[in-house]
């Protein structure tokens, strides 16, 4: 459990910093494109695509962190104030289902990446990079998502374990 928590902390730090840097790179790229269009009349279609994909990379990678803090959007007014065994069963069910769903997403998104690789898809722009590299952000993001679900499932087994992040 302690190892998983440590890994989780490390992953969180990595994601926070790495993705924030990506977001600001995307911001600069997008701004550069606006300025070059308005002041120099140059349009670079690849810059627009790259801007989208870097932003998406940042967002996809960080999707899993909401799991760690149980922040995913949900409708829980029916079950929020329940306690006792019903609540316990429901917690087990929810976390395991989340883990299953996220592992499922890893598998099928890897399939999509492989398929795109096999098809040899390239982007339209002047800088024709392969689409599978872009789509790779999806399975990577889902791996993190699965990891944080794994952490939550482990937490079910060790409810009193220390060093766990507080739920917001």
């Amino acid at each position: 459990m302690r190892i998983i928590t440590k890994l989780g902390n490390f992953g969180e730090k990595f994601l926070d910093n790495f993705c924030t840097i990506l977001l600001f790179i995307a911001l600069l790229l997008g701004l550069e494109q606006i300025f070059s269009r308005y002041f120099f009349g140059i349009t670079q279609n690849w810059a627009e695509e790259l801007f989208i994909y870097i932003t998406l990379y940042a967002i996809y990678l960080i999707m899993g962190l909401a799991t760690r803090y149980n922040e995913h959007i949900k409708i829980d007014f029916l079950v929020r104030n329940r306690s006792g065994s019903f609540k316990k069963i429901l917690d087990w069910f929810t976390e395991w289902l989340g883990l299953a769903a996220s592992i499922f997403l890893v598998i099928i998104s890897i399939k999509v990446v492989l398929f795109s690789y096999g098809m040899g898809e390239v982007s339209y722009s002047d800088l024709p990079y392969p689409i599978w590299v872009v789509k790779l952000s999806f399975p990577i993001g889902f791996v993190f998502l699965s990891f944080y679900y794994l952490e939550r499932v482990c937490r079910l087994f060790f409810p009193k374990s220390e060093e766990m992040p507080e739920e917001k």
Partner: protein
Amino acid sequence: MLVLGLVIIFGLLFLGVPLFVCFVTGGSVLNTLYAGAPLANVAHMMFSALDSYVLMAVPFFILAGMLMGKGGLSRSLVDFIDSLIGHVPGGLGIVLIVSTMLFGAMTGSGTAAVAAIGIIIVPRMLELGYDKKFCLGLIAASAQLGVLIPPSIPMILFGSLTETPIADLFMAGLIPGIMIGVMLMIASGIICWRNKWGIHPSASWGERGRSFVKALPILFMPVLILGGIYTGTFTPTEASLIATLYAAVAGLATRTLSPKAIMEGGKDTLRTTGMIFLLVCSVIIFGRIMSYARIPHMLTSLVVGLDVSLPIFLLVIMVFYILIGFFAEVIIITYVTVPILFGVVCTVMGVHPYQYAVIMTTAVVLAATTPPVGVNLYLTSGLFKAPLEDVIKGVIPFMIVLLIGMIICTYVPALSTWLPSLMR
């Protein structure tokens, strides 16, 4: 099989399972067993849902709002408006509304203002003897006006789903947003005046001038965004980038924002957007399956067959959105209903897409304040450490105002279509 899939989605949903898990699970069942498509198709649909230039405005409008909120800029905004009108009876209530509306003109979501403006102004109001329930209700209700006042995330989502120009949609929401804002001011003014709450001495013109200068950087931002979009100088996505740049530069220049705070803002933005986008791309599976099952098509024939009059039809649509708003928030309201209803509402019944977008967005505004699922209620209750019941009690008068506003917007199309038509 269709029914089974829907039962899975909505059954899990009410068990409190994260929405994205509900839609991925149920959507996969529908995709594979009902539509007969390969499983990987689910991931493919999810990925393609977000690969769009216009959607990239979402994270950057959120970031711009975060930076404005983190810096002291929102404080100078409140100070300035307070110095102008804070001395009239019930003045701080009006200051709160005007501040949230101006703040709404910088960010795309309706929740950012709860913290950014509320934290500054609610303590001041309490000091002057305003009722706590009243303050909490007012901030919860008026913060959400930000989604009607451009920029607006629901409008971006609506535009990307229906291929309606987003700049026009932004303009469509402006007048309804201001109108409802004024209605809220009147309501809060009456309440304050009857209770004789909070009067503080009027500020001198010198003080007003000083606070104006301090607030100038933040007051210029709506001018930049709205002006840029209105005159067609930049697209909504470009506007979101420029707004972010502006907020960062203004914050750094006025020393109200440190580079570290900017990084923090980026981090918070990504976490918020991550949640939004994960849900958006999961819900899209549902929309596509509905298309596949020809539900929109069937609804269209149904409505054509019924031969209802437009006022009755609008009433049905409005009641539907109010009901769904009790249980759902912006993403469900847009991504689940619009793909199904757009054809019926706009093509069959001839409602202008801008008007439909405004009806839907006012529903989003209302939804944030109606229990049991209302994001602003929980946010306010958490932020000010107040029982949820108090916030709900405080919000009820304003909820009624929002509802009246929604009815007016539904039956007066010119409110939504007039301003975009001026851009012609």
